[in-house]
């Protein structure tokens, strides 16, 4: 098993390098000139040329690419933001934990609410509870997260005054951003759990478990649920990746100084170092999440663990595409 993990970790390196090169190339060839952007209305021919030289933008493409990669590998230097000369690495180190925290909490909330609701829905299929939960989940999934965010702000922050409008100081200020982030995914998890559980509950081994005299609760939680986990874990993993991708809108609305707002800043001002640095971090995150999910599979299902250890190509992989988050 550890060989498998090491192999996967090693595979991450070329993937991330590839992503870096691609993003660097794309931002290099995208129209829009950072030097122009920085000078803005101060533009003169001379200052423009001088600035390009200062930023190293006049060097050929491959030289720039090499400088960037070498700086990254040797010093962990992600470059310096064009606007304001702030080292990207410093900013990222400040911001990433915040977005990460938001992401993890959202995932936890989604799981803790979504999975039991899905199980409830599955075990009480066709009952009032089932229909209500499924309908609720569908309606919530149809409402975009920013609509939730704004409505929530209006109701809880302004009208009722229970929660603060923005920032990350107290635990209260996390409630709404986490809620806005999680709601859409709760629907996905509920449905996924429900479907998976329904399938598993009809299995023969569940009948065997019941015939052994197990209480229904144990049958559901000890026998059915672990078998239903694989698709659920897949969805949770995908969700985590998406949330790590910045939760841009939620962070903007709640003024959370995280990766999302940072990416927006970079894109709006064609700030290549920011764009490259944040994409690097994102790819690391997504690769990492994928790896964690794959390892989790091994712990859930020993058949998959056996496949990993024997080194054969995975035959069964229940990966379901996740819901895109704007």
């Amino acid at each position, binding site marked *: 098993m550890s060989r498998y993990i090491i192999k996967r970790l090693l595979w991450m390196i070329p993937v991330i390098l590839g992503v870096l090169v691609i993003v660097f190339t794309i931002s290099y060839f995208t*129209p*829009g*000139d*950072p030097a*122009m*952007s*920085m000078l*803005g*209305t*101060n*533009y*003169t021919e001379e*200052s423009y040329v001088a600035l390009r030289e200062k930023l190293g933008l006049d060097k050929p493409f491959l030289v720039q690419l090499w400088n960037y990669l070498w700086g990254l590998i040797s010093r962990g230097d992600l470059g310096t933001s064009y*606007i*304001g*000369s*702030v*080292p990207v690495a*410093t*900013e990222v180190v*400040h*911001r990433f934990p915040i977005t990460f925290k938001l992401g993890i909490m959202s995932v936890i909330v989604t799981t803790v609410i979504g999975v039991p609701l899905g199980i409830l829905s599955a075990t009480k299929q*066709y009952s*009032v509870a089932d*229909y*209500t*939960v499924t*309908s*609720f989940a*569908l*309606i*919530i999934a149809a*409402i975009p997260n920013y609509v*939730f965010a*704004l*409505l*929530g*702000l*209006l*109701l809880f*922050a*302004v*009208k009722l*005054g229970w929660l*603060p*409008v*923005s*920032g*990350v100081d107290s635990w209260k200020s996390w409630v709404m951003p986490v809620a806005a982030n999680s709601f859409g995914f709760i629907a996905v998890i509920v449905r996924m759990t429900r479907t998976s559980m329904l399938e598993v509950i009809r299995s023969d081994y569940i009948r065997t478990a019941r015939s052994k005299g197990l209480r229904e609760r144990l049958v559901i939680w000890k026998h059915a649920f672990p078998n239903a986990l694989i698709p659920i874990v897949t969805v949770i993993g995908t969700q985590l990746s998406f949330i790590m991708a910045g939760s841009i809108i939620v*962070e*903007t*609305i*709640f*003024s959370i*100084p995280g990766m999302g*707002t*940072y990416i927006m800043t970079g894109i*709006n*001002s*064609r700030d290549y170092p920011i764009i490259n640095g944040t994409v690097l971090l994102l790819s690391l995150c997504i690769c990492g999440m994928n790896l964690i999910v794959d390892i989790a599979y091994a712990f859930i299902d020993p058949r998959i663990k056996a496949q990993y250890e024997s080194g054969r190509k995975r035959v069964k992989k229940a990966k379901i595409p996740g819901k895109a988050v704007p």
Partner: protein
Amino acid sequence: MKSIRKILCVLLALMMVLALCSCGGKSGGETAPAPGGDKEPAKTDDGGKVSEQTDDGGAASQAADGGAAVETAAKPETVTIGVTGWLGRFLDGAEPSPNLTACDGVYDSLFLIDQSTAQPYSYILSDWGYEDELTFKMTLKDGITFANGDVATGSDLLFSVLQHIERGDISASSLGDLDLDNCKADGNVVTIKWKDPWGPGLTSRNIYLFDESWCREKGWDSYDWYEAPNGSGPFKVTEYVTDDHITLELRDDYWNAANEKFQVKKWIIKYYADQSTMYMALEKGEIAMAGLSSTDYTRLVNDTSSKLKIKTRAMGTTLNFFFGAVNNPIFQDKAVRQAIAHGVDWSAIGKLAYGDLYEPADSIVSTKSPFYKPQGVYEYNPDLAKQILADAGYKDGDIKIHLFEMNGAHKDFAEAFDYYCEAIGIQVDLEFGDVTTGLMTWMQDGGSDAGWYNNINGVANGDPHESLNCFYIKGFTWCWWYQPEVQERFLKAAHTTDEASRSEQYAELQKLAYDEYIIVPICECMSVIGYDPEVFSEAEMNAYTYTSAYTLLHALSW
């Protein structure tokens, strides 16, 4: 029966979701009307909420050593205000733009402008004046200390002026042609020398007092410009969290502490990524002051239950429309320019920009400037426009214009413009993009044939060089002000130190712009601030100028 149950469950779920949306109520107000709308701009009879900035009455007139008291509310020890856009750094003229309120707390400014007399005054100079047309002398007070303990000398003062030129920032152009070799500092006395007489003097922009040795040591790229600037002002930065907030706290060793009584010991400048979130924070009381968008303004004016007050102020510039006379040869024909000037309802565009705050302008120089001279308004008269075109021999569809505009408000202007032009038989081809693409496009010939301009940086002394846009935008070579004639006349005016003559020359330039080049003035650029009247008094807000928050942050004999 089963299907009825299903329907009931869906309804139940729907109700649970709608419970989240139970926040209707009194926040009425709508966005600015479409072109041709007939909403009247708001007057001041709106429940006494809105206070226009008046030139007399209510403003503190301050002499050089501090002066008459201004009515103020009893303040809490910590005040939080909100900003959007950038949190910025403490280096003005460099991107990202600085947070001026914060800068005014941390640095001392060389000069401030008295709103009522338009005369400069200073807290850090004991004496200043012109020796002759080309020479200006200033004497720095003794005992001014920076946060790091250094004592300010004349060379720091000189450095503070010249570093704008060294860095090549925006302020550099407003300083004129300095004779750098002959500008010197001798003890606390600084001599500034120009090669040509310079009308605006040193007061167009805030010049902050910098510590030369500290700046040299740190360099302009240091992170200290964000989180630990070294100023002589009463506050120091105790916290700087990117994209979150700046905390300013009173310094123990402030040099002028004896003459000032500070009620507010701590200012927190909180950043909001989203305008509407900031508005909610203001409504809720989390912040005591924030800038409002025009829709927030309308909402607040109509919200009778809110205790917040509004201050509107003109920023000292106007929104105007200009033709690229060089760019599209069709604009060489004055008849075309005239026709467009009459064929477009500019008030509609003004309302798109400022909603209820729309104030029509009749010169491209703001009424707030001492050099303002009213020129006139281009009446909206599409029939006249068509007539002019017909007389000049144009038929429908002969004239084609290409406009590039940036996404956002300007996009709306362009679309309105298109609407009116089509009505008089002029074809407009629109293209949109974001700011960065826009800058590049406008730098090229043929990028855009015309455009709108509203510079939101006010000019402290009302000098119209920004309104006349004469040397501010160097890159847009196709604009009217690049015409040699215009450059020549402007520079001549700027180099005149006799106020009366200068005033006359600026008046002529305004006339030239209006009559000949047909730069259409649309409206005053307005800014709106919402504030908590329990924290800030109306008088205080009136004294708070667009270009400096000095009076807000200092407590001069209050």
